């Protein structure tokens, strides 16, 4: 608003001095007004420096017009500011599209242009003579100044040109998309201005119109660039509609499409150090949806996706996307819920994998421990008890058939009986903990021994010879069969139990079927439940089929190779 009032005043003041051949009040007003208008629109739609810079160019444009005035006072004031629009334009060009200068060269060039326009040019005003009287004229060094200023202008033009060309070449596709309108109009304008002097009359007129149109078009191009970023918002709307159906890879594609960055990646904070919102850009470890580590590339910008205080994910993306933080933020807000879900899924998967591995380790360790206890019982306690019983027998033999103290003989016999009972109990205990024959001779002999010791008829069906089985698989198969046989005889009142073992497609299939009362429930008996856990620990499956009156069959399907 201030700019518009100032612009109107400047136009009114300078109106009288216009040279109809170069610029008209109307044309100048339209150009300046366009900068004010487009800058305001850009700023309203996307609050930030870019819109303000565009408004500043508009104001500077009008400030430059003051020098055209016939009135010596505004004319003299205008002389001081007669190049500010160029400086603002350079600033706007270099700061486009995010309103910030990047890198030392950009800041140096912009600074130098401002220094020239705001310090050196005003210093030269007392030595500049123009048509309208210069109120502060001291000496006339106009020609020298014009040459100096033209030379400086050419230098700056080259520097800015180099910077812009360089920027185009390092720009990523999303950045170029934004730069394209400004570059297109700018190149057209420059080409038209440069070629105009060398062309014949009519063509020159046409080209001059093109140059004028380009000058008019430049603020529109700036606005178009800004709006191109804004177009992303409509994509965000589409994104929102499609998110609930997105699987992890699709989500990445949707976000990449919405933000126009094919290199975009989604990563999640490592489950071990969540809640580190202070420093999301630090080189902490990220993982992808499958739990694998993700290392940011050097050129990646890392934007945290927050849900409340927590970093649910980070986007690794082209830094150019930060040019429009609002689109980035809108996209992130739209995707945050989905990302949070996927982060949870990734965590759960990682934890599940760890839980599976630890369950398998626990079962392996427990088996190993059972084997060791069984061996310790046999080779340790049982051996010592047998030896003691033997020594006791020697003592009894030495005592002779008619000991002087008959009580002693009775006591020794009782001790021997007690030892014998202990040894028998210990043997049964050891067998229950882990049958030695399983380690010594393998699964089939162990199952036959199980059948032979069962109180009920148990048939072990012989199939083709089994390949060597991993310890865990053999132990699991044995314990499944043992538990199922126990259930069949104890609870199902079966009269016959069949145990079958075969290898099929790299899996060991154990089947125990009985002709009992049926009605066994996997969830009901803790025995079956324990079996299911055991089988699951080596990634196997346990199926129990049991309907009342129709017997029970237990099927265990065990992989021969652990995944």
């Amino acid at each position, binding site marked *: 608003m201030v700019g518009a009032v100032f612009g109107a005043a400047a136009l009114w003041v300078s109106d009288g001095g216009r040279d109809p051949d170069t610029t008209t009040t109307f044309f100048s007003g339209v150009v300046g007004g366009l900068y004010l208008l487009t800058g305001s629109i850009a700023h309203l739609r996307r609050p930030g420096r870019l819109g303000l810079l565009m408004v500043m160019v508009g104001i500077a444009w009008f400030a430059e017009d003051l020098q055209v005035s016939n009135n010596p006072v505004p004319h003299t004031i205008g002389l001081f500011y007669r190049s500010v629009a160029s400086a603002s334009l350079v600033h706007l060009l270099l700061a486009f599209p995010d309103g910030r200068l990047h890198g030392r060269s950009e800041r140096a060039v912009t600074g130098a242009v401002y220094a020239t326009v705001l310090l050196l040019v005003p210093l030269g005003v007392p030595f500049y003579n123009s048509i309208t009287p210069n109120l502060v004229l001291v000496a006339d060094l106009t020609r020298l100044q014009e040459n100096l200023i033209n030379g400086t202008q050419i230098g700056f033009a080259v520097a800015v040109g180099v910077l812009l060309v360089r920027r185009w070449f390092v720009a990523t596709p999303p950045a170029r998309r934004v730069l394209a309108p400004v570059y297109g109009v700018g190149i057209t304008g420059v080409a038209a201005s440069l070629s105009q002097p060398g062309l014949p009359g009519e063509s020159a007129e046409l080209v001059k119109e093109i140059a004028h149109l380009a000058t008019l078009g430049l603020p529109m191009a700036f606005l178009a660039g800004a709006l191109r970023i804004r177009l992303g918002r409509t994509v965000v709307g589409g994104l929102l509609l499609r998110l609930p159906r997105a699987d992890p890879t699709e989500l990445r594609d949707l976000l990449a499409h919405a933000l126009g960055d094919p290199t975009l990646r989604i990563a999640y904070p490592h489950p071990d150090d969540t809640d580190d919102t202070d420093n999301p850009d630090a080189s902490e470890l990220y993982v992808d949806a499958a739990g694998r580590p993700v290392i940011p590339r050097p050129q990646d910008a890392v934007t945290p996706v927050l849900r409340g205080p927590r970093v649910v994910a980070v986007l690794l993306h082209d830094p150019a996307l930060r040019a429009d933080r609002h689109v980035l933020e809108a996209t992130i807000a739209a995707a945050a819920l989905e990302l949070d879900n996927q982060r949870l899924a990734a965590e759960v998967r990682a934890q599940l994998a760890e839980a599976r591995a630890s369950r398998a380790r626990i079962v392996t360790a427990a088996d190993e421990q059972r084997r060791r206890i069984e061996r310790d019982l046999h080779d340790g306690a049982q*051996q010592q008890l047998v030896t003691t019983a*033997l020594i006791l027998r020697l003592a009894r033999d030495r005592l002779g058939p008619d000991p002087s103290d008959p009580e002693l003989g009775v006591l020794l016999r009782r001790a021997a009986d007690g*030892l014998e009972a202990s040894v028998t109990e210990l043997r049964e205990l050891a067998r229950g903990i882990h049958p030695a024959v399983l380690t010594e001779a393998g699964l089939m002999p162990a199952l036959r021994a199980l059948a032979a010791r069962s109180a009920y*008829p148990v048939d072990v069906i012989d199939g083709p010879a089994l390949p060597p089985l991993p310890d865990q698989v053999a132990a699991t198969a044995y314990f499944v069969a043992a538990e199922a046989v126990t259930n069949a005889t104890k609870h199902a009142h079966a009269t016959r139990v069949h145990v079958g073992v075969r290898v099929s497609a790299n899996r060991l299939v154990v089947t125990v079927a009985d002709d009992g009362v049926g009605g066994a429930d996997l969830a009901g008996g803790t025995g079956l439940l324990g079996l299911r856990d055991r089988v699951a620990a080596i990634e196997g499956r346990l199926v129990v089929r049991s309907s009342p009156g129709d017997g029970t069959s237990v099927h265990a399907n065990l992989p021969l190779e652990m995944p």
Partner: protein
Amino acid sequence: MLADDAELFRTALADLLERDGCVIVGQAADADGLLDAVERHRPDLAVVDIRMPPGHHLEGLRAAVRLRRLHPGTGVLLLSQHLEVTHLDELVGQSARGVGYLLKDRVTGPDFLSAIRRVASDGCAFDPEVVPLLAGQRGRRDELAALSAREREVLALMAQGRSNGAIAAELQLTTRTVETHVRNVFLRLSLPDEAEHNRRVLAVLAYLRSAPRATTSASASADSVDLGRKPAADDWSTASP
């Protein structure tokens, strides 16, 4: 000849056997020592623990199988903390002569010394618990289904190496009744009409072998004795009390 890695047990066992009139020609703590000592002394009997160094696995069983093949004249009595049919199959192979398989704690029992003498003199001695294990197996049950309960009982005692007199005492029958049962067993198992002793051994073998063979058990049969043609040459029935 004694082989067990537990020295205390070995010494006590040697003491027991020496008091009974046996001569202990050597003691070994592992399988290699056992084979060497048997090679040197050619004893009547080797008492072998099934678990021995280095692996404490089945070294004793493997050594016993080798001994039986290399030195048929040396009886082998295998002691174990637990009984397994699969080990029995491997140990016995095709010949039930001069072989025994007992629970280790039988050493304190009343029948141990007679079992020692039976195996030393080419007889056999299988643990009483072996018999129900065999009976519990498929195949054996089918084959032995022809026998009556009493006949099976008698056969079980025959497998332990008992004489008719000892069986009669155990079952509280007359010797004559036991002899009738034994004849019926021979008949029902279709054993050839040969000398009584050979038929006893064959009956026991039929009992032991009627199970489906474990794949590993065939290895022990390389130089087995053909029991059918060997004359009765020892005092089987006098070996037991």
